[in-house]
């Protein structure tokens, strides 16, 4: 139930693994069966599924509402919150969730007034300050007697350890289900408020309330992901699947579903690759997300280029005919 020992735990696990598992065989069923024999892998898949679905759904609106920067700031707040909780000796989960919720509401307060530029600056200032505060708290913690020599806690919070979530996977799943239900319930008015806030407000949509509620939910999504993928890496699952989905699909609810599906796919693939290769799961998930995004952008650019060429070619032919 504590974040403190996660990294050392996962180090133990990988040693244990190396001795007892068969290598990847291309017999996919057998591979998956072997993988799921292990408690820690089942826990990782369970927690990973909840985190991915939440991040994919919330991410669609984060990207649509230009709140990528704000959600990154929430990650930094969560880092400071986890450090503060560790220092005070309170449950780290409690610290993370409390800070994420308070942070979401505070960021929403910043967004009410002022231009996009002012909001950008204010968010950036808060983010830097929070990271600084986290560093201070980490420093105090590491040199204090509470730490008991465990200085890896900082890395644990920032990067998580999805292979070490066994025992807390159900907290993640329950927080995930609540967040998913809340997001789906408010999806339609939130879409209206995101695309066309003025009309939505005039039509009676509680635009401000929805904005506050949404950032609160983003805070919860970050908090629940901390033990598994960490405060920083959740960002990859929040942004990349949504950005890809919005590039590929223009129907809002279909894009929302695709975003969740992609997040799920990256997580499952990352976990499987992580089990059979020596690379860390967090690296694999972020790399999959990043490479897929690059491929989609490249494919779309190529297609644009091709159609433009075809157009200019046919234009040349037309001018020639007209001239002749």
């Amino acid at each position: 139930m504590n974040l403190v020992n996660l990294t050392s735990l996962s180090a133990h696990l990988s040693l244990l693994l190396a001795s007892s598992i068969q290598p990847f065989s291309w017999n996919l069923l057998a591979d998956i069966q072997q993988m799921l024999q292990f408690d820690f892998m089942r826990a990782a898949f369970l927690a990973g599924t909840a985190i991915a679905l939440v991040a994919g759904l919330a991410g669609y609106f984060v990207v649509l509402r230009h709140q990528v920067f704000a959600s990154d700031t929430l990650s930094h707040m969560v880092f400071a919150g986890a450090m503060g909780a560790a220092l005070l000796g309170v449950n780290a989960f409690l610290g993370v969730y409390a800070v994420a919720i308070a942070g979401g509401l505070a960021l929403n307060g910043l967004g009410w007034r002022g231009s996009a530029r002012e909001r950008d600056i204010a968010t950036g200032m808060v983010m830097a300050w929070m990271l600084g505060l986290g560093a201070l708290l980490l420093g105090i913690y590491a040199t204090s007697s509470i730490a008991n020599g465990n200085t890896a806690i900082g890395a644990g919070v920032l990067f998580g350890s999805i292979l070490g979530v066994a025992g807390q996977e159900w907290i993640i799943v329950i927080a995930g289900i609540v967040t998913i239900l809340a997001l789906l319930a408010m999806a339609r008015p939130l879409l209206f408020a995101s695309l066309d806030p003025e009309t939505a407000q005039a039509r009676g949509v509680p635009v401000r309330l929805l904005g506050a509620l949404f950032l609160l939910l983003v805070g919860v999504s970050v908090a629940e992901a901390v033990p598994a993928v960490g405060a920083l890496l959740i960002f990859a699952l929040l942004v990349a699947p949504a950005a890809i989905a919005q590039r590929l699909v223009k129907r809002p609810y279909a894009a929302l579903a695709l975003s969740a599906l992609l997040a799920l796919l990256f997580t499952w693939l990352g976990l499987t690759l992580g089990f059979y290769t020596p690379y860390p799961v967090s690296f694999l998930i972020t790399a999959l997300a990043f490479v897929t995004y690059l491929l989609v952008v490249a494919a779309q650019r190529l297609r644009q280029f091709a159609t433009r060429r075809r157009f200019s070619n046919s234009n040349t032919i037309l001018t020639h005919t007209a001239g002749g």
Partner: protein
Amino acid sequence: MLADEMMRGNNQQIERAAAPAPLSPHAIALRDTAVQLGVRTIWRDANLTIAPGEFVAILGPNGAGKSTLLRLLLGLLSPSQGRIEVLGNIPRRGNPAIGYVPQRRTLDADLPVRGRDLVMLGLDGLRWGLPLPGSKRRQQWARVRETLEAVEATAYANRPIGQLSGGEQQRLLLAQALVAQPELLLLDEPLASLDMRSQIAIAQLVARLARAQRITTLMVTHDINPVLPIVDRVIYVARGQVVIGKPEEIITTEQLSRLYDAPVEVVRDSQGRVFVVGLENETAHPSRDERTIAP
């Protein structure tokens, strides 16, 4: 030619008077209304009534309180004095009988949503939960298709809205306001940043749809000329006052000089277009690109 247009306007008013009388005598009524933003009184002593089905243009310099008037009717602001009635009731936010197109900057060029989806939000954007497939959903899409057809936007309704031209976006926003079949349509500068041809096309489209469905329409506009042939009356908001009347009564050298308390001249060109000269320094929020203000 101008006289012709006005005659036609009068005839239409007579035709409309013969139609069955609605329950409430006025679509909109303001009595001694004043509105304040912070400590500043925007305008006061506004007295006017608008009949159901009337098409009214709202004119006046920037910052005079034209959009404020619409916000008051929408229930987004409360008057500091006096009374307002909209469709027989005190204004309330979220009245489904009001269609509204706010003044806007252009939409993000990469907004990843189809025009059709934006129109649908005008019908179901208030509902919680996800839309579920079924016969009700099919009826809603049929209504969206019908509205898109009416504003002649079917051809580009499946393209991302950000990629459309200003005139195309304006048609989709109009469809969004119309899709729930409102009784009152409030349009804030729907003609801004459109070229002259699109301005006239949009103005005529609004007028045609509003007449056909007997929707009372208030349109804030910077330039009277595209709507001059189709308005019944104009509201002029300037220097803290709100006046209403037929265009030929309000947009005159005498009226506007009195309203502005400054020598203003109304000039008509050979094609019947109206220009107001002498207001170069009169905007409340002066903007650089306004040398001559068409009313």
